[in-house]
């Protein structure tokens, strides 16, 4: 095949880029015609008006994007807990969301019992450690080498147990997060930009900062420490890791505890924005589409995915939601992820899976 002249011309249509471009061009063309012929202005309301609004009131756009960014950071934090556990144990931990609630509830519950705020944080960390050890002993160890799907379903069990346990201990009523006692900033910064007022909550800025710090720390931990290397080894193959003398049990406790710490921080940040209740559980499920976008094993993927979902659903809700009655935030994230999946099943940063047989 050295002679270039004998090669068939590369099929332009086969290139995904060209294909996507053509499809987009076709859609734009059809829309342009459609909007002209459209009498009831539906197409106009969907495809033109929202963008006009964005251009006319850029401050609102910035505000919406910022809101999306902040909720995206929180989704990313929950997704991060998932990714940690999935990387190290291959377990898709459905209970991560409820761990966030549980950690936050424990913290607030302890404070209400009269424990000083920072001591409460320390004790909560202890509780999360105990939880990690318990889960390893009671759930993971007996289920080692079982199919992934069995472990996945076992985490449903953990979820339900923690819901019942948490409600029995702390009651089902929403609680106030002890943000002030933890010296988290309050209030808002108002910025004069783009001819309007954009209001940024200080707690949101703090959340973004803390999240970035934590992600950096985790990345360093994974990359440069002995335990981090062992974690990566376990992620690749349980059996191979065992055979070189890595203790699975120890690794699992570490990684679930790390996920517990991430859960506590997420819980504090989230609780400071709204309040602490089991309603968070439903919101925490939004971490799943984030994971789909980012791929299950990629920390950068979790972050980028979180931001895309967060911003996407806020923009969708603000500009398109009113067209169909609002409240589309509850499902838009899943549809964004679903649409994405159809084109890239392995996620943004995942590797293409080659099936072997």
């Amino acid at each position, binding site marked *: 095949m050295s002679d270039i002249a004998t090669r068939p011309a590369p099929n332009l249509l086969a290139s995904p880029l060209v294909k996507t471009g053509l499809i987009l061009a076709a859609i734009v063309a059809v829309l342009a015609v459609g909007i002209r012929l459209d009498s009831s202005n539906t197409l106009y309301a969907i495809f033109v008006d929202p963008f006009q609004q964005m251009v006319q009131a850029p401050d609102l756009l910035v505000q919406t994007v910022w809101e999306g960014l902040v909720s995206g950071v929180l989704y990313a934090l929950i997704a991060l807990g998932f990714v940690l556990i999935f990387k190290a144990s291959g377990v898709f931990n459905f209970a991560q969301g409820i761990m966030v609630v549980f950690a936050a509830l424990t913290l607030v519950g302890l404070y209400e019992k009269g424990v000083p705020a920072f001591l409460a944080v320390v004790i909560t960390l202890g509780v999360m450690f105990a939880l990690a050890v318990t889960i390893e002993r009671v759930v993971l160890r007996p289920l080692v080498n079982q199919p992934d799907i069995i472990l996945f379903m076992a985490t449903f069990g953990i979820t339900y147990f923690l819901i019942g346990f948490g409600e029995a201990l702390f009651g089902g009523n929403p609680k106030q997060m002890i943000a002030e006692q933890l010296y988290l900033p309050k209030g808002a910064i108002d910025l004069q930009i783009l001819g309007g007022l954009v209001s940024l909550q200080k707690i949101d800025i703090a959340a973004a900062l803390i999240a970035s710090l934590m992600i950096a720390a985790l990345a360093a931990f994974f990359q440069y420490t002995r335990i981090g290397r062992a974690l990566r080894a376990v992620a690749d193959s349980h059996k191979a890791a065992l055979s070189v003398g890595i203790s699975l049990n120890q690794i699992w406790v570490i990684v679930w505890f790390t996920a517990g710490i991430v859960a506590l921080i997420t819980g504090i940040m989230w609780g400071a924005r709204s309040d602490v209740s089991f309603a968070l559980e439903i919101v925490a499920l939004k971490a799943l589409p984030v994971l789909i976008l980012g791929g299950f094993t990629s920390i950068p993927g979790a972050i980028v995915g979180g931001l895309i979902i967060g911003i996407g659903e806020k923009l969708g809700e603000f500009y398109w939601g009113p067209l169909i009655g609002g409240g589309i935030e509850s499902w838009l994230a899943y549809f964004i992820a679903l649409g994405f999946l159809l084109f890239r099943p392995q996620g943004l940063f995942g590797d293409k899976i080659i*099936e072997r047989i």
Partner: protein
Amino acid sequence: MNAEPMNVTGTPIREKGEVLLSVENISLRFGGVKAITDVSFDIRKGEIRAIIGPNGAGKTSMLNCINGFYQPQEGQIVFKGERRAKMRPHRAAAGGIARTFQNVALFKGMSTLDNIMTGRTLKMKKGFFWQALRHGPAMQEEIAHRRVVEDIIDFLQIEHIRKLPVGKLPYGLQKRVELGRALAMEPELLLLDEPMAGMNLEEKEDMCRFILDVNNQFGTTIALIEHDMGVVMDLSDRVVVLEYGRKIADGTPDEVKADQRVIDAYLGVAH
């Protein structure tokens, strides 16, 4: 069975028919990794064709291309006179290509009987509503196919494990059930991926006998991958040898055995 004393004397005795399948200039890449590079060969009706080569030579990938599980980037496959660049797995199955796998790929949760019955799926035509009733035509169809399946079970001598879940069977029996499942499709071309891997001598002899019987009694064309050279040389009419995704030899077992490049590939070359 009194099989022909094939190949022992050096020449294949059976007269083979026209070309059933031919692969033409197949190339397959995974990203930057070349699994197969520009390989061509043909399989004639009624023959036993062996594909051999060291580990990682691209043998299984070749079978995967033939039954449409992988799509080669270049080259074409001509099956029964039909030339196509792309083969879909179910189209290959409907055209009469059946397959067993290197690591047994049985349906572990199902019984032996059900596993082999799945092989009849394509031949069962009764619609959903008859199936939901499980009476009348649908039941008659089930029974007719059950009869065929029982013949295969007899042939492979696995009557005693008929109703056992296959997941718990010993490896040798699983391989046999898998062969049965492929036979249930009444294939024209049967692809066997290391049918004797991990078997003891006795099990290997049984499996060889089944393969020869299938070839003789049903006239099924067989392409097989095997590492046991004794088996390959005894069973096959023609052998194609792959190394690093390229074809390095093609011919009767004796020609291939004498080929210097094959010897080098297997024994290594002195540098």
